[in-house]
């Protein structure tokens, strides 16, 4: 049974907590281990907070995915913000363009198995992260 995709609009800080709670619930249902049940919502929190800080608003989509015999969770963080000029730089530990603490993207990357970033200056950013069941 594949559960329906979860979509959470990120417009206020409270939405970050909603997104990560839902991510945690799904992780638990899917059978992720206890530590992954903390890694996944933490990664969602980093990505959702990034949306608020850089774009003001956006959306987090969470869904189950399959690749062959592997099952996992995919988190997409989308916004129509200013875009990321240098993706490589943004993934560097400690780099920050805001008054934030500079751990968002590198943090989310460390906690997940795969991460892709598509960004266009002036149009927005999509960050996709995946975590696979072992």
């Amino acid at each position, binding site marked *: 049974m594949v559960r329906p995709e979860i979509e959470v609009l990120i417009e206020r*800080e*409270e939405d970050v907590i909603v997104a990560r709670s839902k991510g945690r619930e799904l992780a638990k249902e899917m059978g992720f281990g206890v530590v992954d*049940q*903390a*890694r996944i919502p*933490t990664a969602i*929190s980093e990505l959702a907070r990034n949306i608020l800080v850089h774009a003001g608003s956006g959306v987090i989509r969470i869904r189950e995915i399959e690749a062959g015999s592997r099952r996992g969770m995919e988190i997409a963080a989308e916004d129509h913000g200013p875009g990321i000029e240098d993706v490589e730089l943004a993934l560097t530990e400690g780099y920050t363009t805001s008054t934030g603490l500079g751990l968002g993207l590198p943090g989310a990357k460390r906690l997940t198995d795969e991460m892709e970033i598509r960004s266009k200056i002036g149009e927005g950013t999509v960050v996709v992260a995946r975590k696979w069941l072992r």
Partner: protein
Amino acid sequence: MAGVPIIKLGASLIVTVQEALHDRAAMELQDDITTAIEHTGARGLLIDVSVLDVVDSFMGRMLGNIGTMASLMGAVTVIAGIQPAVAVTLTELGLELRGIHTVLNVEKGLALVQKLTGNIDETTGSGGLDGTT
């Protein structure tokens, strides 16, 4: 919205986080704690985070900041109840809570903070310094 309650116990302040805190609430907590240390002259701070099953980089840094600020004001900080999965994610995020004592639970936390503030047999004083406004 209600702040996180801060209770005075002898020379220490006890803070029990009761739900996930978004960024603004975490910053308010930081302010409330530093104000409380100033008003009470507390020499110890115990923060119970046992209810938190997710601590992201912002909250982790906030906790670190609270410890540093408390230290600058002459108070030691003990954090109790970091869940094992949370400890792993904090480590993987590369966050260290420097200068902060960490213990498994509130009981141990109370004992430690009282020992560190020199109040080994402290039984007097539980006022209520409430962080709510």
